[in-house]
């Protein structure tokens, strides 16, 4: 799993958590703004992704005593950050490969 491509919702969730810990609604809004309104995640999709990320140890819940259940926040773990970096590297390779191929075709 660690070296495979991630789905767009999962990637966007991870990117949303890179800067700061966020709760569910904040993630939805951030993803919407990050994708310029192109990606509108449903709550089902968002929490499906969050559950898998939690199960795999890519993100964790921030435990605060006063946090109500509806405002539970999530943050990236070091493992999640590392895997996100791997994914970015993978995408960089692909982009480079695509650019080279296209350039070769056009030359």
């Amino acid at each position: 799993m660690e070296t495979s491509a991630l789905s767009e919702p999962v990637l966007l969730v991870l990117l949303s958590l890179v800067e700061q810990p966020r709760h569910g609604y904040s993630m939805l809004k951030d993803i919407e703004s990050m994708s310029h309104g192109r990606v509108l995640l449903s709550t089902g999709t968002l929490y499906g992704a969050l559950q898998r990320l939690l199960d795999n140890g890519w993100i964790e819940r921030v435990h605060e005593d006063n946090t109500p259940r509806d405002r539970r926040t999530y943050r990236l773990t070091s493992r999640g950050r590392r895997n996100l970096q791997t994914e970015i590297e993978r995408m960089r390779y692909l982009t480079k490969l695509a650019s080279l191929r296209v350039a070769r075709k056009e030359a």
Partner: protein
Amino acid sequence: MLTVYCWLLCLYPRSYRHDFGEEMTFVFRDARDALPPALAAKISFYWCEVFGLLSSALCAHFDRLFGPAIPFPRFYMQPQFRFPRITVFLMLVIFGGVVLAIRIASTVAGDTSGSVWPLVSVLVFMLVTMGIAAAVFSGVLHSLRRSGLHRLENLQSHMHSVESNSKQ
């Protein structure tokens, strides 16, 4: 609509509902309250929510029963995995097995008046046999690196060579 949403949450496994149910309801409520007044936006939002909830509930049940059965990564983003050539052959083998099993079963059913058990047992036997044959053949192709599943390796090594070339 919030009531319908809460009702739909019952489709999730109990543990999932316990972990996320309340949180999801609040997020849904916040998102609904922030909707623009346009009817199209509302319809699109509710459609997306219902569809997302149903598919996510289905995935949660699959995950609970079989582990992460539906792959977490987006394997369809890798065109070399999309439809390996061996899949066509395996599908043909299984299809052939089913057709053969039906033919044999209908012959057996003609001989034994009334009872369906011989028919079922022949069907099961044939399907199992063809499944094993397909698995063996797939294993042979895989060991010969002809199954199509090694293409990612090739792609990655190619990408590394591209990178090293570009550095030079």
